[in-house]
């Protein structure tokens, strides 16, 4: 019968229309911005810099190695190294960025900077509501605007952040253990040296008659 196909289609439309009143699978829209779908754990939008501790600038993990700047596909990262060094999480002196800018109007959210970073310093944010009135300056994020605490990283990517923290802690422990071992070895060596020195002091001078004899410690 001519028109049968159309009627069948209409029935389908009616089923969807009525279904949208009681079936969540048929009504999938959310009233943004009142309602929001929670961000997925692996969601990514633009990068941010992770810092440890309270002071954002002191706690930045970034060591200004500029790998991300080189690897960034659209070249939206801009770094100038500072000449002053600051200690990193294990206490080793490292460079820090004097300027660290990301132009998010150019950034394509590809996450390659995160992948290539050997220091877990740059991570992806999930914040997408970046509207502003300044098209150029407002979207050029400097290191103060980019810096976010590790606790924030934990709230947006808990699994990944825990893994990173575990890795960093293990590294730190390793470094500390090494430092401890080094210190022990040093202490031992120092003790040995001191013992040798003491031994040298106790031995009487060869020429006892010289009053101003300088005692040289044994080498």
């Amino acid at each position: 019968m001519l028109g049968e196909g159309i009627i069948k289609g209409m029935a389908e439309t009616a089923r969807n229309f009525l279904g949208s009143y009681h079936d969540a699978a048929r009504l999938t829209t959310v009233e943004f911005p009142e309602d929001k779908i929670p961000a997925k754990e692996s969601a990514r939008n633009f990068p941010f810099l992770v810092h440890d501790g309270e002071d954002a600038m002191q706690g930045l993990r970034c060591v200004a190695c500029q790998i991300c700047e080189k690897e960034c596909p659209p070249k939206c990262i801009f770094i100038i190294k500072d000449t002053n060094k600051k200690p990193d999480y294990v206490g080793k002196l490292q460079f820090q960025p004097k300027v660290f800018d990301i132009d998010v109007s150019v950034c394509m959210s590809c996450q390659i900077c995160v992948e290539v970073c050997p220091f877990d310093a740059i991570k992806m944010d999930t914040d997408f509501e970046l509207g502003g009135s300044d098209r150029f300056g407002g979207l050029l994020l400097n290191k103060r605007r980019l810096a976010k605490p590790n606790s924030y990283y934990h709230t947006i990517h808990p699994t990944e952040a825990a893994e990173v923290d575990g890795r960093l802690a293990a590294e730190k422990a390793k470094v500390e253990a090494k430092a401890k071992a080094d210190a022990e070895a040093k202490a031992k060596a120092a003790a040995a040296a001191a013992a040798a020195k003491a031994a040298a002091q106790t031995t009487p001078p060869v020429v006892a008659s010289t009053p101003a004899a300088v005692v040289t410690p044994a080498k």
Partner: protein
Amino acid sequence: MSESELLSAPAPTAMNYEIRPKPAGTSDAEVGGELLEVAMGPHHPSTHGVFRMDVVLDGEQVVKLKPVFGYLHRNHEKIAENTTYLASMPYTDRLDYLCSMTNNWAYALSVERLTGLIPPERAEYIRVITAELTRLVNHTCLIGFLLQDMGALGTPLMYAFRQRELILDLFESLSGSRMMCNYMRFGGCRADLPAGWLEQAAQVVGGYGQFLDEFQALISENEILVARSQGVGVLPAELAINSSITGPMLRASGVNFDLRKADRYGIYDRFPFRVPLGDHGDVYDRYMIRLLEMRESVKILEQALREIPAGPIIDPKAKIRGFRPKAGEAYGRIECPKGELGFYLISDGSPNPYRYRVRPPSLINLTVLEDMCLGQTVADAVIILGSVDIVLGEVDR
């Protein structure tokens, strides 16, 4: 009509428009006999992006059609030659922005051919799963767009998008982004599946059959659709082969050629699936082929989700930093939803490719656009273009 005449003529209103004097030397008969040249696009809702067709019309009939490209040209190949191998990966997402996973795979496969990296078993399964999900996304979108072009405004497209959203959610929880996934890496994948992903995917795939049933009930037997699309834009098989047409368009013309069967790249030899073929090569066949292909994809997905093994997801020899393939060249290709997507790479041993070439199925499938449209009406040209399935990000690169 001269300028002074135009100025002195009374302003056209609803009242006097009819009685305005006709320009000297024209008559209705002459206007009817002229060929009309129309530039359809670049900003035309039916061209699926910024694409232009210069059409010459005799009345309603198309007598000549020349596609004009380049409005979205950003020289992707040159960008890739000036950047590292890895940094090109997110750019491939933006070629055919509906199918970033298959674009990633094609590029990763070519680099693997170039370097000899071998993805582990689990990565191969993940690739098949994501590629077939991408095929579902692409075909679902396409049939929505195609029906939109035919005048089924809104409803089918919205149903299609509702279903597509479920897969995009899967992509987001896997790769972090809904469309620009940037997920695959040379020798494997970037991240392992998050907890519960497989169950969620199985649920989406399980519900897809019902969606396809509903969609077919909605429109496949619709008399208007049948009348609009059957016998329109016929593409003969010989012409299709000679013009390097690939993908569903080729198979709708009855040529049994699917790279998943012909090349058996990845692990496609483990999946028994059929290749649907058309026998008329018209718009309706191209529409039906995509519906049938989705059913086959669902079968592949069900098997892959069942069989996926545990294990590493990337070749241990793969390097993120300091990746330099040794000199040589390779051409790798896969069956992406639109056809054969190939990447041709020449390495000179440096971190950047010496030559990087994308073989875009969307562009090459347009070779026969004129042949299909000749003698058809303008309205048919719109749906013929819709049935080719182009994405301008890939056509212009």
